[in-house]
């Protein structure tokens, strides 16, 4: 267990959401250092060396992502993905509400690294209070001279804007988010071209998750090696695990990568309610595959590579714990309804497939679990896989396929 937090620093330092408190704890020093003493490329190199990987779910190396940005086309933009719509994920909200300046300083460092003079924080519509709060903090930073024109006496200028979505899961997908900021329907674009070449308003854009960005001031302040020493060789640093489900103490836990499921659930989460056994784990929220829990699984270290060996992805590390009181047909009924509701409708397999799956799971649950319907549901889910325009359609099938395949008994009542 860490002595102090790196991301959830408000848990150690009261009132860090106040500018003077943040400043007196080293706030904006990293930003000032990069702007006055480092070249953008050096910042990117430092982040590459730290091993920081994207916390939005895909785990793509952040510094590498920045290096893809097209320097032949200008201007550049940075977009902070604060959509946080994955059921089971609630880490970014805590960061933004309680440690806002560190997040915003991260946005600023990323902007400097890729040469952006404007950055957008895209928040889901339900986060309107957070947006209002961030607007105040952004204004305070402007007054304090850490945002605006000619920062720290250099010719570098930066403005940060918040942008509220209308509450659509799909807008967490980066190209749909860009469409939404542009005032269009939030539907994904075809890729390539990737945002690093053709992003916001058709210009090169870096999209990073809130948590990813919040790491940056600490990495730049303490050095890549300091960061790299935490976590595992595959996944450097710390992660905020959003723990929920049938645990005694659900919540956000900032822990190094490599912490085992058992440590998270039992040491931090207080164990399963009523002392029941863990039946399954969804490590990445509603879009997860189910991991059938056993002793070996519980002792698996949580990093991107290790979780993949269990037939799932760590994703945004939104760990949902399911115990033996829960039947998987009930869970996938929930996830299917969610994805059916959130499908943007742009591509056929997702639009029609989620609707079809919804009918099938309802029939299965209402009508005595006929094998034909279960087989058909599995078949429909597999038929959707690898055919959709964006990951949403894919996500909607993960729980269905692994639920039926790994917990067949729950579908044969």
């Amino acid at each position, binding site marked *: 267990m860490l002595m102090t937090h790196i991301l959830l620093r408000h848990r150690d330092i009261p009132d860090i959401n106040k500018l003077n408190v943040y400043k007196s704890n080293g706030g904006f020093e990293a930003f000032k250092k990069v702007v006055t003493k480092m070249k953008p490329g050096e910042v990117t190199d430092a982040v590459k060396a730290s091993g920081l990987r994207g916390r939005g779910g895909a785990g793509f190396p952040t510094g590498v992502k920045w290096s893809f940005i097209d320097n032949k086309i200008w201007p550049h933009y940075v977009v902070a993905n604060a959509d946080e719509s994955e059921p089971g994920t609630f880490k970014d909200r805590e960061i933004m509400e309680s440690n806002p300046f560190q997040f915003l300083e991260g946005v600023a460092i990323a902007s400097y690294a890729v040469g952006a003079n404007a950055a957008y924080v895209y928040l889901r519509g339900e986060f309107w209070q957070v947006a209002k709060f961030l607007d105040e903090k952004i204004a305070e930073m402007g007054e304090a001279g850490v945002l605006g024109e000619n920062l720290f006496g250099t010719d570098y200028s930066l403005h940060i804007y918040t942008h509220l979505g209308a509450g*659509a899961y*799909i807008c967490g997908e980066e190209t749909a988010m860009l469409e939404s900021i542009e005032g269009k*329907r939030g539907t994904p674009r*075809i890729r390539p071209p990737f945002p690093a070449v053709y992003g916001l308003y058709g210009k090169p854009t870096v999209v990073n998750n809130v948590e990813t960005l919040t790491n940056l001031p600490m990495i730049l302040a303490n050095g890549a090696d300091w960061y790299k020493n935490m976590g595992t060789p595959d996944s450097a640093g710390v992660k905020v695990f959003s723990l929920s489900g049938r645990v005694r103490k659900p919540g956000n836990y900032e822990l190094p990568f490599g912490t085992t499921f058992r440590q998270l659930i039992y040491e931090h989460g207080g164990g399963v309610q009523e002392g029941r056994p863990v039946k399954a784990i969804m490590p990445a929220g509603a879009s997860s595959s189910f991991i059938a829990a056993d002793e070996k699984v519980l002792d698996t270290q949580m990093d991107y590579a290790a979780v993949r060996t269990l037939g799932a992805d760590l994703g945004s590390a939104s760990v949902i714990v399911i115990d033996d009181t829960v039947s998987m047909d009930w869970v996938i009924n929930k996830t299917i309804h969610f994805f*059916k*509701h*959130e*499908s*943007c*409708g*742009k*591509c*056929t*397999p997702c*639009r*029609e*497939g*989620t*609707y*079809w799956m919804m*009918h099938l799971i309802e029939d299965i649950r209402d009508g005595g679990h006929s094998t034909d319907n279960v087989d*058909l549901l599995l078949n429909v889910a597999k*038929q*959707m896989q*690898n*055919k*959709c*325009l964006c990951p949403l359609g894919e996500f909607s099938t993960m729980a269905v396929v692994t639920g039926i395949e790994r917990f067949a008994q729950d579908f044969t009542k």
Partner: protein
Amino acid sequence: MTKQVTLTIDGKQVTVPDGMLVVDAAKEAGIDIPVFCYHPKMEPVGMCRMCLVEIGRPVMDRTTGKPILDDKGEPKLQFLPKLETACTNPVSEGMVVYTQSEKAEAGQKSTIEFLLTSHPLDCPICDKGGECPLQNLTMAYGPGKSRFLFDEKMHLAKMVPLGELIYLDQERCIQCARCIRFQDEVAGDAVLGFDERGRSTQIVSLSDPGFDSVFSGNTTDICPVGALTTADFRFGARPWELSSSASICSQCPVGCNITFNTRREAMSDGKIVIKRVMPRQNEEVNEIWMCDKGRFAYHYAESEKRLSKPLIRKDGKLSRASWDAATQAAGEAIAKAKKDLVVLASGRLSNEDLFNLKSFADQVEGKAVLYTHMGGGDLVSLVGVGQGTNFGAMGAGTTIVVVASDLYEEAPVWYLRVKQAVQRGAALIVANPRETKLDRYASFVIRYSYGDEVRTVHDLTKKGKVGDAFAKAENAVILFGSDGLGLDGSTALATACARALNDTEHAGKPNNGLIGVWQRANDQGAWEIGFRPEENLVGALKGKTVYVVGADPAGDDPALVRALHGTEFVIAQDLFETETAKLADVVLPAQAYTEREGTFTSGERRVQRFYPAVPALDGTRPDFAITSQVARQASVILEGTSASVVFDILAEDIKSFAGLNYAKLAEVKPQRPIVGRGDLYYGGTTYENKFGLGVQLSSAADRSEKFTLPRVQKVEELRPKEKKLLAVPVTKLYDRGVTVESAKLLNQRIGEAFVALHPSAAEQLGVEAGERVKLSLDGVSEDVVVKIDETISTGVVLVPRSMGLPISAPAEASLKAAKKVSVRA
């Protein structure tokens, strides 16, 4: 030239330009990859997931940049684990595509199955049935049997009017967004959008009035299901019952290639009638599009009011007569009149009709007068446009000038073509006294005052940003119109344009020259054949024998009624008993152009054939034949049996037509994209062109003839004077012309006769938009509705042509509000 790349599709080697999409490359190789959302005229979106294929790309050695070879010496290929969409992936060298592998077929099959889970399968009552991409592709690629329970299908509204012209069946829609993207990308009227999301996604109209675009009908052609249907054809017939005839749209000078679909039906008393009008591909003219006026304003030929018997005035009353008696009476009157004959004809007639009329007038030494408010067609014949001019080829290096014309209202498809040329890099200069829709695509917008047309064009040849954009352009085309102009004004404008083009060496080569935005389909043809307008038409008619063909001067202007009363003898030849016919001595019933063959010369001087679509109304004859019969009675022999023979004689006589004949006009060549075959899922229900792309006339400049352009004639400058209003004529697409008036659907969009004022003029008058005022013009007073236009000057009011108000040229006018506040006594 674009780099060529070679790839293999289903074992077939194909060499295509770099950057082409896999789906199009396959098409070139004769391999059909099924699509719904993809359309070759629009940007790919990859959303329907129908075109899933396996794509392998050679693995490249990073150090040498060459493909890595496998054991057999073949390039090693890398396939993604996912199927890829053929519509979003561009070709690359050495690419290998499998469109019919087990994996690809499974993908295509699954997409069809998914689509059908929410499709009503009401093919037996669907207008699209029989020419439906979803139906066809289901048969070809679908699983044959659905595993989705029919009872669980969503039930949605089946008759949602997006506007009064287009209906949406929400159940049939497969959310491919072709219609939305057409309106956005092609038409430039982004009036459709999606509402809701997921399975609830629905097409909605975002405009008021609904579906506010003159290109709306095209969305029904490219809709891959029966979701969008026209109010005109909806439940009108099954596609397989329809016969088709190639034709040319007669509504404006663009000359869109069209197809008339006809059927013999009980509900029309066993007659063969036109059921719908569809675009026919001509990439140089209308591509695969047409405007709604052309699509819906064809009903006039079926009107009950058609004349079917010749009439002769007896005892002051018109009464039925035989053809022999009528043509004899007409012929004798002309024989008597000789040089006192005035043939007054319009560009509604075909080249053959006009040629016979002109020959007739020449032989009796009479006069052939073109009935028009716009001049300059003779100058177009001199400086071009000429052979090889093609809107589709205009792009970077070409400057297009549009002066005194609102193309969206006057020649919608030219509006599309100009817009596209700009998108390909052409420079556009729009010079107009008021705002028009085309302004937004212009590099330069010149806003001049009514009356300053000539000066404005003259300035184009001067040094400066705008002048350079015109004068120094590799190619330059000027489209000139008659917004706010009468005959003398438009003639002066055309002269100034011709001189500007000639002075800057923009004549005598492809994509250079002048294009007249005429009121009628064949006005340019009339000019080529030698018809000329008469500045003082009232004076020219006095005491003459007048042979009015395809025109209704009496219906347009009270002054011309008086003029016709002062003539010796009037012969009217028309489809209808027009106001002119009512005061004629002999009336001859003509055939509609849909009932016969002939040719029109479009504004860009392309001669195109039209073919008979429906049997002629009993008792009517083609205009050229009637003229021949009348001429015979005046001892003048003209060809009167075959339109093609008349055309042969015309081609011998008129230099610019030299060497042309009907066979040449019917020639076709392969066009891209490939449309209109069995693969209608690809390009839509547009027709392939099998009956002729037409031939462009050469200009005098093309033929390197020496010619002198006339000097610009000074026009009496009508300016708004203090406390007086200047009324200027403008053209609206949907007017009270006979073709729109009898189209019940479009009728709803015509609206009332109006006058458009500057807001401050309206304020001064104490009226608001929508209120009524009394407009006095040329001695006539009419109640009209007030519209507001902020872009005109305060002393000017706009008055629409062909809306029942007599306005052929700018004129002084007065307005009186209902509250008796008067601006001018």
